[in-house]
């Protein structure tokens, strides 16, 4: 009887541990999958997604009414400069941490002429002279620009504008400037 009781307790405790481990792991695992899918061309650079169609299967529930640009970032080697060029309709720049939290968003109501931020890992020093510093809770994450573009013509125009977006390390930009 004592043996059975210990067995039942063992099963319940291990079930609870596995249950909570999965609940806590799901967002991080899914973000890792998303980062891997969106970084085929490399980290720390914008990739303009093709127009969303029934063939778009990288991220769940894509909106066919937006032009998306994604920059999967890694701050291990230092801060990044991220900028979004303005668009004539709604646009926003949003940042997602490694656990999927949307920890920052700025849109055209606040940044009428485009946005430029310096992204730093939380706890790391801020680059000297950086104007708008945003701290990321994790080293890796995803920056996403949405531009409202419901028609093929608007998508083409938005994709053109997206070429002006920047996602690059502060060090590389400083080297270019010097």
């Amino acid at each position: 009887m004592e043996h059975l009781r210990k067995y039942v307790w063992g099963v319940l405790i291990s079930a609870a541990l596995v249950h909570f481990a999965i609940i806590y792991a799901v967002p991080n695992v899914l973000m890792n999958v998303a980062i891997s899918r969106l970084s085929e061309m490399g980290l720390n650079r914008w990739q303009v997604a093709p127009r969303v169609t029934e063939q778009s299967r990288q991220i769940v529930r894509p909106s066919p009414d937006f032009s998306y640009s994604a920059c999967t970032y890694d701050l291990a080697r230092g801060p990044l400069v991220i900028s979004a060029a303005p668009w004539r309709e709604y646009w926003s720049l949003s940042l997602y941490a490694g656990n999927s939290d949307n920890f920052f968003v700025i849109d055209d109501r606040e940044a009428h002429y485009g946005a430029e931020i310096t992204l730093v890992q939380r706890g790391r020093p801020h680059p000297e002279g950086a104007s708008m510093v945003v701290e990321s809770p994790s080293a890796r994450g995803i920056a996403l620009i949405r531009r409202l573009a419901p028609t093929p013509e608007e998508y083409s125009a938005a994709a053109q504008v997206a070429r002006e977006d920047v996602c690059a390390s502060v060090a590389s930009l400083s080297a270019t400037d010097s």
Partner: protein
Amino acid sequence: MIGVVLGAASAWGALEIGRTNFAEQYGAWHFNRAAGSTAAGPYSRAIIARDGLLALSAREAMYFTLFADDQGRPLSESCIYELTGRDLDARWWSVTLYADDSFLAQNNDRAHSVDASRISYSADGYWRARVSPVKGDAANWISSRAARREFSLTLRVYNPQRDFRPSEQTLPRLTTLSCAGGG
């Protein structure tokens, strides 16, 4: 081993049940206020990551999802529905159909959504969108062709006005017009 299976099954069950039970409900629409929030609890975060990864926080956009018709039956390609609504107190909105795998239905009708910038209104001030496998004479159409069973509709409300209050009255209403086989 039994503990691992039990733990995995209960976690899966919590995520499955939680997408409707952990959400606010307005009519048949479900809304998770914690989407994208840094203050989300572990269950909400996991549910949103699975069903709507890279969602914006509610200050920027609100996402309402409808999984069943006005009678509580799962949405099906074999039925014809009508979605009726008024303009919403927000900068922009859209309604998009997703198959049960959370991706766009595998059809090339280019009618996966209707949105505020393109929708036609009736003379009474309402817009009406047909959700069906074929367009017919619908002024606004969301194609459910190849969506099979248990598809869902997501209403995105971008830049909601400060006094925007979701309610059964303000959100669009789905009505089942007919189902193949009379179901």
